[in-house]
C-alpha cells in the first residue's frame, strides 16, 4: 500500500511522516501532497492568532473539547518560533492540549517557523491539507504569538480568531490595525482579570473608528479559557461566533476559497522562485564572489543580481 493510501485510510503514523517530509521540503513529499488535493476541501480551517501568552493554546484545548462533544474530528497545527540564532525551537503549545492525547479523534501537530515570517511555517498549509484529506472536520491553526502585522493565518483560515487580553490598557494598540480589520472573531481572554469590559469597549471603539463595525462579520467575545468548557468560560460563545461567521460565509464560499487559493498560489510562486534563485546563487559560487566583484567596482549590485536570475 502506498503512503498516500495509508494516509487516506487514516493511518496516523504515515500521515505524521508525510507531514515531516513536507516540513523538510522533500520533493517526493510534495508529489504525494499533490495526489491528496482531490481529497481536500471538506475540513473547516480556523485560525487562532494573538498576543504572546494571550491564552491561544488554552483556548484551542477548550475548543477541541467542545468540538469533540459535538462528535467532530479535530486536527490542530500549532506553530512556535524557530530561534534565529540556533535554528532550533521549543514547541510547547501542545502542553496545554495533552488531555486529548489519547483521543483518536484528535491529531495535534507542532511546527517551527523555520525562518518564515508572518506567524506560520512555510509548511503550515500543507500540513493542514493532510489533516483535511484525512477527514478532520475542524482544523485549528495556532500561530506564534504575534502582536503586530503578522497575519498570514488570515489568508489560510476560513474564520480568523484574534485573541487578546485585558490590562494592555491603552496598549490594546498592541494588536495593530491590520490584525483587527481582518479578525472575524475577537476574543478578550483572561476575562477573570480586571478590565475585560473596558478592553471590549476599547476594541469596539477601535473598530468603530475605522468604520469596521457595521461590517456584520466581527464579533467580540469575552472568555476565560482556563475555565475550560464550563458555562462561565465563554468558550461556547467563541464556538457560536465561529459557527455564525461560517454560516455567513457559506453564501460566499466559492469566493472565499478562491481568495485563499489565490493567496496560496501567489505565495508558492514566490517561495519556489526564491528556492530556485538560491540554488542558482549556490551554483554560481554563492554571494561572496559576487560581492567581491561589486566591492572592487567590477560590476554594480543590480548587474550581479541579474546575472544570477539569467541562469534560472
Amino acid at each position, binding site marked *: 500500500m502506498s503512503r498516500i493510501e495509508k494516509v487516506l485510510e487514516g493511518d*496516523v*503514523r504515515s500521515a*505524521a*511522516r508525510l*507531514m*515531516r517530509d513536507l516540513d*523538510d*521540503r*522533500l*520533493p517526493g513529499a*510534495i508529489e504525494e501532497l499533490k495526489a491528496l488535493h482531490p481529497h481536500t476541501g471538506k475540513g473547516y480551517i480556523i485560525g487562532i492568532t494573538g498576543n504572546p501568552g494571550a491564552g491561544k493554546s488554552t483556548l484551542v484545548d477548550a475548543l477541541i473539547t467542545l468540538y469533540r462533544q459535538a462528535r467532530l474530528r479535530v486536527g490542530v497545527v500549532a506553530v512556535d518560533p*524557530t*530561534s534565529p540564532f*540556533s*535554528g*532550533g*525551537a*521549543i*514547541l*510547547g503549545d*501542545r*502542553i496545554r492540549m*495533552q488531555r486529548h*492525547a*489519547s483521543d483518536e479523534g484528535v*491529531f*495535534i*501537530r*507542532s511546527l*517551527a517557523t*523555520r525562518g518564515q515570517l508572518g506567524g506560520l511555517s512555510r509548511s503550515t498549509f500543507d500540513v493542514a491539507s493532510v489533516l483535511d484529506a484525512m477527514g478532520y472536520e475542524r482544523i485549528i491553526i495556532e500561530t506564534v504569538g504575534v502582536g503586530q502585522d503578522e497575519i498570514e493565518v488570515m489568508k489560510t483560515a476560513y474564520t480568523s480568531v484574534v485573541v487578546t487580553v485585558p490590562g494592555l490598557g491603552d496598549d490594546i494598540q498592541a494588536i495593530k490595525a491590520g490584525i483587527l480589520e481582518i479578525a472575524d472573531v475577537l476574543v478578550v481572554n483572561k476575562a477573570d482579570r480586571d478590565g475585560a469590559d473596558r478592553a471590549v469597549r476599547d476594541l469596539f471603539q477601535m473598530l468603530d473608528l475605522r468604520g469596521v463595525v457595521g461590517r456584520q462579520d466581527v464579533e467580540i467575545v469575552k472568555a476565560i479559557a482556563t475555565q475550560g468548557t464550563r458555562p462561565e468560560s465563554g468558550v461556547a460563545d467563541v464556538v457560536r461566533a465561529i459557527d455564525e461567521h461560517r454560516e455567513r460565509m457559506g453564501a460566499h464560499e466559492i469566493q472565499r476559497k478562491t481568495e485563499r487559493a489565490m493567496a496560496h498560489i501567489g505565495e508558492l510562486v514566490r517561495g*519556489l522562485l526564491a*528556492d*530556485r534563485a*538560491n*540554488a542558482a546563487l549556490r551554483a554560481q559560487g554563492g554571494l561572496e564572489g559576487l560581492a567581491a566583484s561589486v566591492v572592487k567596482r567590477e560590476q554594480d549590485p543590480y548587474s550581479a543580481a541579474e546575472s544570477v536570475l539569467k541562469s534560472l
Partner: protein
Amino acid sequence: MSETLRKRRILVAKPGLDGHDRGAKVVARALADAGHEVVYTGLHQTPAMIATAAVQEAVDAVGLSIMSGAHMTLFPAVIEALKKQGAGDVIVFGGGIIPDEDVIELLKNGVAKIFKPGATTQEIGQWVSDNVSLEG
C-alpha cells in the same frame, strides 16, 4: 529543486506523577540551542500519551526525565507503548536520579542512553547529534 532542511525532532517528556521539571526544561532548552526541534509536553504524562505525541509529531527520539525512582517501570512502559503504536524505531533515552545498576539494566532493555545529574548540556547535545540519525 526545492531546498530540503532536515532537522532532528525530539520529544522531551515527564512520565508519571513526578513534578521535578527543572531538568527536563534545561535539557529541552539545551537541545533547542543545539539546533534541534524539541516538543515538550509538560508534566504528568502516561506512557500512552507520550507514544501518541511521539507518533503525531514524527519525532526521531523520545527523551524521558525521571526523578521519582519509577524509572524501572516507566522506561519499559514507554518503549512498549511506542511499539504498540508502530513506532518501535523511535530512540528512547533520558536522565534523572537513576542508580548505576539500574542504568545497566535499562541499557540492556532498549534504552539508548541515560544521563545522570551533573551531565553537561554540551554532552547531551553532542550525544544527540552523534546518535540520532537524520535518515528515515
